[in-house]
């Protein structure tokens, strides 16, 4: 939440309103993850995971799936949907 101009003493806006759009991009929700999906060599670049990712954070780069870990919450839907079982699950090191 950004600093408010409404009340000089408070660091919040009145009622906690977020006045600027785009906070979903600023806040890196990838920190919520306990496990992360990792794309292995088996990837055929079919793009199934791109379609299924609820966060929209997988892209096909050089015919391979590439996960943006800043926003991946570790739901593992890509792992389940991958037709060639190219995605594996790893514990997040913190």
């Amino acid at each position, binding site marked *: 939440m950004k600093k408010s101009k*409404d009340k000089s003493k*408070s660091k*919040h806006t*009145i*009622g*906690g*309103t*977020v006045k600027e*759009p785009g906070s979903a991009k600023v806040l890196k929700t990838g920190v919520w993850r306990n496990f992360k999906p990792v794309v292995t060599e088996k990837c055929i670049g079919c793009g199934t995971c791109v379609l299924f990712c609820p966060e929209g954070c997988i892209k096909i780069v050089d015919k391979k799936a590439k996960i943006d870990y800043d926003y991946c919450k570790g739901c593992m839907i890509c792992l389940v949907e991958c037709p060639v079982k190219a995605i594996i699950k790893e514990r997040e090191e913190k």
Partner: protein
Amino acid sequence: MVRKLMEGSEFVSEAVRLCRPDLVSAYPITPQTHIVESLAKLKADGKIDAKFLEVESEFSAMSSVVGAVAACSRAFTATSSQGLALMHEVLFAASGLRLPVVMIVANRALSAPINIWNDHSDTMAERDSGWIQLYAENIQEVIDTLIQAYRIAEDNRVLLPVMVCMDGFILTHTIEPADLPDQKEVDEFLPKYKPTHAVLDPERPMTLGPFAYPEPYFELRKELSKAVDDSKEVISEVNDKFAKKFGRKYGNGLIEEYKNDRKIAIIGLGSVCGTLREVVDKRKDTGLVKIKCYRPLPKEDLNKALKRKKIVIVLEKAVAIGLGSGPVFAEIRDLLYSVKERPKIINAIAGLGGVDIRIKDVNALIDESKNMKDGEVRWLKS
């Protein structure tokens, strides 16, 4: 100004019309029904410019009003008893989002057993919801408090929802003469609501009611609590400004003292204060302290009004079950705890489910109070 003779609920609908809401959204429930009926008639007759939303429940009524106010409108709703209980969840959203919703509550008992008559169980159960609660003694005060409520709620220093509490049947269904202010005067008193803190507008995207991590949540709750406390100043100020414009004044807007130079003080909320005035007029030992603004609780004013008393009697139409007393009594006792020569404080729980509070019952209570123990709770029943 026009002096009229109408039913309390009809007066409320006329007062709502004067406030020029953009939306009226309500679900009928006894004893609030006549308010919604009269408003629907005003709409059908083309006398009110508001959009009239027929919702399927009180939950929807409050939700739609919250949405309308978030979109910079002025909105009105009214409810009672079970209806208010059904709104419970959204009440906290309205205050947390700092939306100046204004609502009339026609006070009625809560189930079970089912009962349609007046007491304060419904609004007392919402006392921690972050809403400002103003209790009115008579129909004139309801009209005036409703107009003031929008001014208080929409003030930039406040931005909080306000509940105007009027006793079910006793005020909603009574035909009484009252002054209805002129539209022009109300327009001058109530400028258009122009918020900057919460604006639902596709041109300027804003997120209302976002997720908050523990620390910001903690701080925002603290700020809400402070905002409700700080609204006392504005409530008093609006009461003064109203008096200047319309010639009517209700104490300092927070409490009203009547013949309170005597050694016993009796505290009341709402229409029972009319009865208590009668009692006080015929006695020489008792004065009245009326709590008009119950949330925020005007601690300093009450302390000043009560600290030199011998006996303080808190007469209330609600019970805090599990505490064995009324909620107002517990709070009055709390605020007098640090007074050096503390008065004897007595609680009378009266009028639950619409039981009449008669002059002779109150007189007997005051007479007996001299022999009662400090902290004693008396269940008054005729």
